[in-house]
Each structure stands twice: as structure tokens, then as C-alpha cells.
């Protein structure tokens, strides 16, 4: 008989509610009904795994594009991807995207009047190594205004997408920078329960700052693990 390892329903203390009215777009894009809690079975504990063949050389560097160097503060973002037991997650794909130094995305829907940088596309990918470590080089993104409320500005951030090793570990999040002045009015950052918010703020990393080259930031990412409390069948099966 099939034995499935018990790893269930962990990590929800860190998640925002589906409806967070101050972030106005959630109002029509959040289910009214409660989510139905189900145990994890084969399709939930399996997941895609990627390898070096999936990443081309240079994909972990956003600072060069179209024959030139991007404007702005060059930074190195690095860290580890771990499960909730602290175990490294190797060979997981990390996809990142972000605005340029002036806060503008290379996206047809972004039309606020900050200039595009011809040498910055704002997209990178990397894989974690055997110890779960990743690193990419980019430009520190700028803050930018958005239409959520009067004088609304997003704190500077980098979007992160990770698969982990199981369907349940899939995570899309945003990495923020320490001492950002815009946290106080941002409903996306503040949608997360207070105890978990600061897990999204990277740490300035002088040890990883490269002499005469780039400023270091460290950002560890913790995915739901396989060590959580077993799901209890309400019918006692």
C-alpha cells in the first residue's frame, strides 16, 4: 500500500488573507468561500526539478543588455533556499524580475513617466547549488507610484518565483530592502501578518559587498517543509 510522507498545511501563519481590502484589487479577486483543506497526495508532493541545462550563461546578471551596461547602483543578491526545517533545497529554479533604477518596468502596461533603460531588461534566472545557495547581479530597483490610493508608492522590491521540490512548495514573493521609507503606506507588504513581514526584507551584507564593484544584499528564502504536523482526518480514518 502506498505510503505518503506526512507533510501538511505548514506555513500558513506567514500568509496574507486572500481579501485585504486596502489592496483594492483583492476585492474582486478573492474567493468568498473558505478554502477546503485537503491532505497532500502524489500530485502535491511531487514537483518539477530543473538542472543546469535549463539556464543559459549570463542569465544571473541583469546589468548588461543590448550591448551596454545598465544605469544605477550595481548590487549582488544572494542567499539560501531552505525548507522549514532549515534543510537546503538544491537545484531549484529561481526566476526574478524587477523595475529599473528609476522604478520603471520593461512592460507594455507600465507607463509612468520614468525612463526605460535600454541596457536593462529586469529579468534573471538562477539555480540553487547543492547547499541551496543562489546569487545574481542586478541594479537596485527604484520605488514607483501605483494607483491603489492617493500618493501610493511601492517600496523598492524584486519579485522572486520558486518551485522548490513539490507542488506545495511553489512560492512567489517579493524581496524588499532594509530601511525603505515606503513601508508605512504599502498594503501589499503589510498584508502579511506582522510576525512574518520582516522575513521579506533582505539584509545589507558588507561581507558579500565586492570591493570596487557591487553592494551585497543577503536574502534567504524558506519554503514549506516536509516536517509539519500530519493532517488529521476529521472522520478519524
Amino acid at each position, binding site marked *: *500500500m*502506498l*505510503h505518503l510522507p506526512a507533510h501538511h498545511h505548514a506555513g500558513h*501563519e*506567514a*500568509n*496574507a488573507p*486572500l481579501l485585504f481590502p*486596502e*489592496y483594492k*484589487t*483583492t*476585492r*474582486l*479577486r*478573492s*474567493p*468568498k468561500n473558505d*478554502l*477546503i483543506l*485537503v*491532505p497532500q*497526495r*502524489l*500530485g502535491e*508532493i511531487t*514537483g*518539477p526539478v530543473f538542472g543546469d541545462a535549463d539556464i543559459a550563461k549570463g542569465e544571473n546578471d541583469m546589468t548588461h543588455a543590448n550591448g551596454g551596461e545598465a544605469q544605477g547602483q550595481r548590487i549582488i543578491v544572494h542567499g539560501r533556499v531552505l525548507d522549514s526545517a*532549515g534543510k537546503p533545497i538544491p537545484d531549484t529554479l529561481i*526566476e*526574478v*524580475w524587477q523595475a529599473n533604477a528609476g522604478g520603471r518596468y520593461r*512592460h507594455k*502596461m*507600465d507607463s509612468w513617466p520614468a525612463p526605460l533603460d535600454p541596457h536593462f531588461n529586469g*529579468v534573471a*534566472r538562477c539555480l540553487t547549488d547543492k547547499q541551496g545557495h543562489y546569487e545574481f547581479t542586478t541594479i537596485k530597483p527604484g520605488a514607483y507610484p501605483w494607483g491603489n*490610493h*492617493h500618493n501610493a508608492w511601492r517600496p523598492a522590491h524584486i*519579485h522572486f518565483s520558486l518551485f522548490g*521540490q513539490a507542488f506545495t512548495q*511553489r*512560492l512567489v*514573493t*517579493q524581496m524588499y530592502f532594509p530601511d525603505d521609507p515606503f*513601508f*508605512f*503606506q504599502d*498594503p*501589499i*507588504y503589510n498584508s*502579511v501578518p*506582522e*510576525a512574518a513581514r*520582516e*522575513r*521579506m*526584507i*533582505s539584509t545589507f551584507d558588507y561581507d558579500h559587498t565586492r570591493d570596487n564593484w557591487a553592494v551585497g544584499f543577503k536574502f534567504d528564502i*524558506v519554503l514549506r517543509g516536509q516536517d509539519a504536523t500530519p493532517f488529521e482526518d476529521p472522520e478519524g480514518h
Partner: protein
Amino acid sequence: MIDTQNPDAPRYPVLAKSQDQVPFGVTPSQTVGPYVHIGLFPTWENSGDAVPEDAPGRIDVSFNVIDGAGQPIGDAMIETWQADAAGRFNSPTDPRGAAEATPAGFRSLARVFADESGTIVVHTVKPGALPAEDGAVEAPHINVGLFARGMLERLYTRLYFPEDTDAHASDPVLSAVPEADRPKLIAEKTDRGYHLTIHVQNTEGRETPFFAL
């Protein structure tokens, strides 16, 4: 100063240390935002093809994604995850051990962005049934992860197939869904495959059931 209740000028207490100064814990989810296409669209060629174009048994599985005002969500993204026809995943974390999924090139995973009408099409094969704990069997289904601006985390639902009525009756996940809501997870047959409309929010009884894991 602190006013978290006024949606026109929200103000929050600022804690704002950094992750090194707070206890270890799972990283929270955040929305993919409106510019997700630049980051996740170019990742791999033909990302909507879970199988190659000439694969035997290839079908179209299409979705429409509708918001609480009845409008299509034109910036939705769906990722599907599924077994092959024999119930095997293209995944090294399958506890049954490694086995090659078929047909050749089957990758279990697909990722597609909606067009302006909120329509998403995945090219794949119909999955097989899956063994579950205690001798139970899961009916053929596709895991559907839904992302969009305005969603603070992925929404997870499932697509089942209309011809598998007997298997649905004993499927452990469908059994956890209120009976009246089960048909909302069952796709309709189309000329080229199957179609499911996902109502993210609906107050008139059409809302799609979503799952927590």
C-alpha cells in the same frame, strides 16, 4: 497616524528590521503583480505544452478565469501539474521511485498567461488515476495553480474530466467538496479536449472551490 482601516490612505506601524533580526520562518507569499509577464513568460519555450506538438493523445485543456464582477481576468497566469496517462509524474520526488513519464517529452508542468478574454490553453495529455493512501484512488485530474495581480497567494484548484463519473464518486478530494460544488471542478468536453471556467469570486453560487494544502 496609524490607520489601517482607511483604504484611501492606509497607514501601518513600521517595524522594518530585516530577516536576520527576526525569528526563522516560512517566507510569506506576495502577489505576482501586473508585470509578471516580463519575469515568467520567457522562461522556457512553449511553456504551455506539457507534451510536444506531435505527441499521441495530445489534447487542449482550456480555462476561462472570471473575477467577482463577472469580468475576465486578462492578466491571470495558470500553472498546471499532472501525471501522465499511466499516473506517473516527471518528478524525482515521486515516492514510488523514478520512472520515465510518457509520451517522450512529457513534463507534467505547463505555464500559460491569459489573453485579454481571460482564456488560457494548455496542450497536454489526459492524466491517469493515482493511488492514494489506504487503498484509495484519485480520479484523473489536473492540479491548477492560479496567479494574478490582486491575489496575494496562488489559488489552488483541480480540473476533473466529465467521463470519469464512477471514479469521481470515490475520489477523496472531490469527497471533501460539498456535493453541490463538485460539478464546478468537472470540465466540459470540447472538440479539441476540455474546458473549465474558473470563477475566482462569485456571490450567486458559481464560485469555484479552492483548496488549502
